[in-house]
């Protein structure tokens, strides 16, 4: 069993308390998303939901998955792959955009 203890004050020192805090934030954001989905705020709903989900995504990746504290190369590789995925899939969806905005002709 590893006996290495991180130095006090080391930036990687996320402890249980901080994790619970992050979890609480994620829960609150989810609750907000839920409330918004029941509300009638019109067309801004979709971008707003996407932004909130993106926020949760980034928080989990950066803190729970520790990416924020990992070597740069790892950050860049994941971010690069993710960016590529997003662009390609955005392109794919937009190729069907006519169908998305004017379904059934």
């Amino acid at each position: 069993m590893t006996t290495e203890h991180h130095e006090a004050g080391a930036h990687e020192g996320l402890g249980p308390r901080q994790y619970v805090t992050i979890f609480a934030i994620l829960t609150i954001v989810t609750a907000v998303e839920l409330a918004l989905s029941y509300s009638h705020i019109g067309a801004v709903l979709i971008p707003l939901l996407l932004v909130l989900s993106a926020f949760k995504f980034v928080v989990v990746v950066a803190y729970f998955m520790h990416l924020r504290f990992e070597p740069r190369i790892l950050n860049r590789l994941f971010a690069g792959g993710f960016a590529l995925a997003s662009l390609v899939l955005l392109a794919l969806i937009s190729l069907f955009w006519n169908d998305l905005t004017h379904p059934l002709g």
Partner: protein
Amino acid sequence: MATAAGTLPQYGTHSGLWSWITTVDHKRIGTMYLVTAFTFFIVGGIEALLIRSQLAVPNGTVIDAELYNQLFSMHALTMIFLAVMPMAAAFFNWMIPLMIGARDVAFPRMNALSYWLYLFGALLLTSSFFFTAPNSGWFAYAPLTEVQYGASQAMDFYALGLLMLGVSSMAASLNFAVTIINMRAPGMTMMRLPVFVWMTLIIAFLLFLALPPLTVGLLELLFDRNFETHFFIPDGGGDPILWQHLFWVFGHPEVYILILPPMGIISEVIPTFSRKPLFGYSAMVFAGIAIGFMSWAVWSHHMFTTGLNPVPRAIFAANTMLIGVPTGIKIFNWLGTMYGGNIKFNTAMLFAVSFIPLFTIGGISGVMHSSPPIDTHHQDTYFVVAHLHYVLVAGAIMGMFAGLYYWFPKMTGRLLNEGLGKWNFWLMFVGVNVTFFPMHFLGVAGMPRRIYTYADGMAWGFWNMTATIGSFTLALGILFFIINVFVTLRKEPNAGDNPWDAPTLEWATSSPPPEHDFDVVPAVRARDPLWYDRDHGIAPAPPTDEPIHMPPPSYYPILLGIGALMLALGPLSSMAVTALGVPVILYSVWGWALEPTH
């Protein structure tokens, strides 16, 4: 350079079938890939010769329409997935660890697993000939692949076979990406890597990012065929064009996955036999990276005639034209390497140099397709067949043969016979041109692809007969290669460490290398390290007493491969087989995880 005698184990001391089945040595795995890939190359070649025999004259009677559909579909699938990609994998396996100064890949057992998954997937796909082989073309456009258009399981073989092969490639690409990024010898910075290693890294990224969309498409096809979904069936709200998008989002990066490794190979061969470093190394690397990125932005050029809107069509056309630029940079850099060099035209060099004009021809016809209005005339004609065979046969295959002649001495300790090699080369060179150049004419004369015969009055007979003669010439050339291999293997090993006086690290150890690759991991001071050391009078370091740990052999990779095969066989036979595959997989994974690795 002499290797330490006696104390360190030599490659080949472990013998017998079991040692091959349980091997995790990248060199042995590379050999298995090479032999299997070449075997399937012959299979694909026979499929091609049957096709050419049928098309030689109008109203051909060699093959009926049903079998013809299976032949052209399987010819493409075999060549792409069972021959060219695994041949590249053979070279990655053999040479990448050596070129970066490592003793093996990052995950040796996963490396073995990739091979077994390839072998079993290849057997699965090819065994379909006993029933009905896939018959809807290698890109399998929906809805022709759906159950209402054919009662056989052909397209289930297709989907399941490709899924297995996809897992094999996923594992291999992840393995090589980690290896190249993380296991370089001290001093081997990214910009000192041989271009072949860079190309491998780029296609590794392309593979593990491009395979998932294909996986989704294949799974949705399986669901359509077996669970009554309607992803690609219009009669139920589905969209056949979705299949095309999913396929080509993979398919276009795939063709760059096919061509970049051979480009990497000739980027090693040409400098060696020009006795000059590669011209414009940085440009070569960045051009390769640019091609990798841009390959994601062109896929719909395969779909210009499907009714895309004008804006996307224009964007894809422009991107397709642009991707010719980095490719052109590479062409000029190879020429620049040769210019002013002290050139030796042995067989390896002949193959490598011939790649340049031959691939250029394929590239020119490719850029012609990039214009949507012109492509409307080319689509589904032999003009496309001409293009793709120029880049893949006259290009990629010629590049692979350069690699075979170049690296054969490293792998076996023996130099292939140059006399037979010249016959091999010239027959292949004449063969590819006589076979595929006339197809440009046939295409503009209106001959569609995938027809099993044609009428007398079409005036296509002359060029078809020419192409058939060319194809048999090409086959004869390949036969010379096979003869060369058998003749050479009977000789005593006499190549020495570096018969070509080449610059890269694989030549810094014996031919073939010992199991542990290097007695001493080389120190890298520059690009083209062996030339640097030679020119600066630096002698190789003597071996040390440091113990070398190599990963022990394991039977879990082949067992896991068998489990995966069982999963795939279920839908083709009885789901009980799939169910039995699950415990096999669990047992293999647990055994693998708990097995000691040193």
